[in-house]
């Protein structure tokens, strides 16, 4: 794929950016230069400072020191509105869309065309249609955003930037929620925009995507720039080393387990939806000593599947048994007693209480066990907490430290430790390493494999294909509420998985 060499004139220059938060130096004298029409990747682990840097460029926060220049002219932004006026647009992780409003309303929000003081809906629709046409996007202006699939929602986000005449587009982890096919479509759109002269800043931690899309790459670690290179001049190993500071064994694949009896069995699980069903006749089995991975982009029913098994959601049809016990009608507590443990996707809202102490977080689920004669025993609670902290290498100021003061990786280790402490025959795990730094990722993966090898059954849901490939003995791929493929460890290549995740069609 050849492209014009970008003009040697800086569209964006960040010089000496410093940003401090209580306890951490998020950006440590960071320099970044991007030219017109260039696609520039910004890489780093979680907590490396990439999002902070982009927030500063987008005006959402102000640097403690350093300068920003656009096209050679120094600028300061005290709000996103000013950055938008200067031609900078950002698509944040998780998107910033209003589900209850239409595509058009979302795109023109904050910059609405008006006629005699009231909204000019027709002009708005026309403007959006024109942009859709010009850039080859697949969006209908009148659709309600909440009804749209993720890939289309992302295109709405890009439309928002184009409507405001952004010349510099920042995309923060844009492919986290896309199938491989959607990712390629996005990359085509971005290449087209770059060819038009737009400048693209692409924040990612995915090595193969950065190598495939970008012209140049800057790597951050612990707030500092550790590498600056033309993409053509570097490779995955060098990038990974720059991100983590050590040689990382890429794409580690753990040896398979030795499966025994079926412990978790689900048949015909169905949840109807307003349109397409949320779950359509899903069946699966997990044996003791086995990890079954569920691959698939978020939004294809994986979350609902786990919720239904855990008892957090009702099924319209189907049965679930754990160790032969039918879970139908059983409460969450009863299901846990029957042998389920669960590490949920949402750490902050579902898996923990950020405001409460670490020791209290670890005691949840054990409160009856840690009681003597009806009263909680503080010593027992501390001992229980200390054991988990020790065994799972949870770094925290102490058992009384509020959960939210722990890093993402340590929080996840703590939650994993708590759930594994139940020694439950079945462990449901969702996105175990989302937002977790690489050191903790390795740690968590090892623990999951150990748990499996101790004879437990593990159901792993992950959007990270490398994680699925590393851990799963068998892989099920979900698409639009159905299991569309079942692959063995050997069959689960990136290509095969990618194909299945897109519904079988590329």
């Amino acid at each position: 794929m050849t492209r014009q060499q970008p003009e040697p004139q800086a569209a964006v220059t960040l010089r000496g950016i410093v940003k401090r938060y209580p306890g951490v130096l998020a950006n440590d004298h960071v320099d970044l230069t991007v030219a017109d029409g260039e696609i520039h990747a910004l890489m780093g682990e979680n907590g490396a400072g990439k999002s902070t840097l982009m927030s500063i460029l987008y005006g959402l926060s102000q640097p403690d020191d350093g300068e920003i220049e656009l096209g050679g002219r120094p600028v300061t932004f005290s709000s996103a509105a000013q950055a938008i006026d200067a031609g900078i647009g950002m698509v944040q992780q998780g998107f910033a869309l209003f589900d209850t409003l239409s595509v058009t309303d979302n795109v023109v929000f904050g910059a609405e065309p008006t006629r005699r003081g009231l909204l000019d809906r027709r002009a708005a629709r026309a403007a959006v249609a024109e942009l859709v046409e010009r850039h080859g996007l697949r969006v209908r202006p009148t659709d309600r955003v909440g009804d749209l699939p993720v890939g289309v929602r992302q295109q709405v986000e890009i439309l928002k930037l184009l409507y405001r005449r952004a010349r510099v587009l920042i995309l923060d982890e844009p492919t986290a929620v896309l199938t491989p096919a959607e990712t390629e479509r996005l990359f085509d759109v971005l290449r087209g925009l770059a060819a038009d002269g737009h400048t693209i800043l692409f924040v990612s931690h995915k090595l193969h995507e950065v190598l495939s899309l970008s012209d140049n790459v800057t790597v951050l670690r612990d707030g500092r720039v550790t590498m600056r290179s033309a993409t053509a001049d570097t490779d995955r190993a060098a990038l990974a080393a720059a991100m983590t500071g050590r040689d990382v064994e890429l794409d580690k694949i753990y040896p398979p387990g030795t499966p025994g009896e079926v412990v978790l069995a689900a048949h015909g699980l169905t949840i109807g939806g307003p349109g397409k069903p949320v779950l359509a006749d899903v069946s699966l089995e997990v044996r003791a000593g086995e990890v079954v991975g569920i691959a698939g982009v978020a939004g294809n029913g994986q979350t609902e599947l786990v919720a239904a098994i855990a008892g957090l959601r009702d099924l319209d049809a189907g049965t679930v048994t754990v160790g032969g016990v039918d879970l139908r009608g059983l409460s969450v507590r009863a299901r846990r007693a029957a042998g389920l443990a669960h590490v949920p996707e949402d750490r902050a809202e579902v898996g923990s209480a950020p405001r409460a102490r670490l020791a209290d977080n670890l005691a949840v689920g054990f409160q009856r066990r840690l009681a003597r004669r009806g009263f909680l025993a503080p010593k027992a609670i501390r001992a229980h907490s200390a054991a988990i902290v020790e065994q799972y290498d949870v770094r925290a100021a102490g058992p009384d430290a509020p959960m939210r003061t722990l890093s993402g990786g340590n929080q996840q280790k703590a939650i994993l430790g708590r759930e594994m402490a139940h020694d439950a025959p079945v462990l449901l795990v969702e996105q175990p390493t989302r937002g977790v730094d690489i050191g903790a990722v390795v740690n968590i993966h090892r623990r999951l494999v150990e748990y499996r090898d101790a004879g437990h059954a593990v159901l792993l849901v992950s959007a990270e294909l490398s994680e699925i490939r590393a851990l799963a003995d068998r892989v099920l791929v979900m698409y639009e509420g159905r299991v569309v493929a079942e692959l063995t460890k050997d069959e689960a290549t990136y290509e095969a998985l990618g194909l299945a995740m897109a519904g079988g069609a590329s």
Partner: protein
Amino acid sequence: MIDAALFSSALGALTPILFAALAGALCQRAGVFNISLEGTMLVGAFAGVAGSWYTGSVWLGVLTAVLAGTAYSVILAVAHVSLGGDAIVLGVAINLLAVGLTSFLIRTVFGTRGTFSDPALRGLESVHIPGIADIPFVGEVLSGHSVLVYASWLAVVLLAVLLYRHPWGLRLRGIGERPEAAASLGVSVTRYRYGVILAGGALCGLAGAQLALGNVTLFSENMTAGRGWIAVVAVMLGRALPYGVLAAAVLFGLAEAFGFRLQGIGLPQQATDAAPYVVTLLALFVSSARIRRSRTREST
């Protein structure tokens, strides 16, 4: 039993609740849970009476009520939007402050306790609409109210237009749904939330003015008597939609007016006092049941 006078008195009675509920709905749309309607209405009522008394003009009294309501709502705006204080704690405290403050002031300013009333105090006059007033039944219902009653209907329409046809309304709805998303598009969440709270304060001021200068012409300690709380319920029942809130307020007004009628046939006053609340509760049950049936049951 059911005649024009019933509906007429219902209309007059529900106006304060309607104004307050519109205030609450507006705030709710922008994501502000405003339960200080009761206190702000009370402040508006006192200010209205004080204004009318001191200037001799009922319209200056209404203006005073609106200004007082707006000024009083600054407390919630600053403490909640700028400083991040909890909306429920602040709401309860602001309501209590209003009771204490107005009772304190009725003593120090008017020198009485309990109720302040005076024959010289100018109240709102009933408006006789020529043409409409002559229509049988409908005329008796619609004509003869104070100007504020008609203004409240206009306010419903204005709110609907604002929310759905004006850019500010679009931004408010976005802010209410996802404030961070609105902020990332350069829309100042703080400024819009201040706006709805202050506008709400003005509406509550009008509610207080109707209460103390329209239905009656006096100020009595704690005279809002729970209407602000009913307005909160009306916002919930009407799902913060302008016409929904109107329907909820009408329901409550009718239940109250009907209650008074039942007194006439011998039911004790206390039973009819309770009737509006019971009716509203039943309406909420029905409305909730319908919502739950149409939504697939999920607990995540």
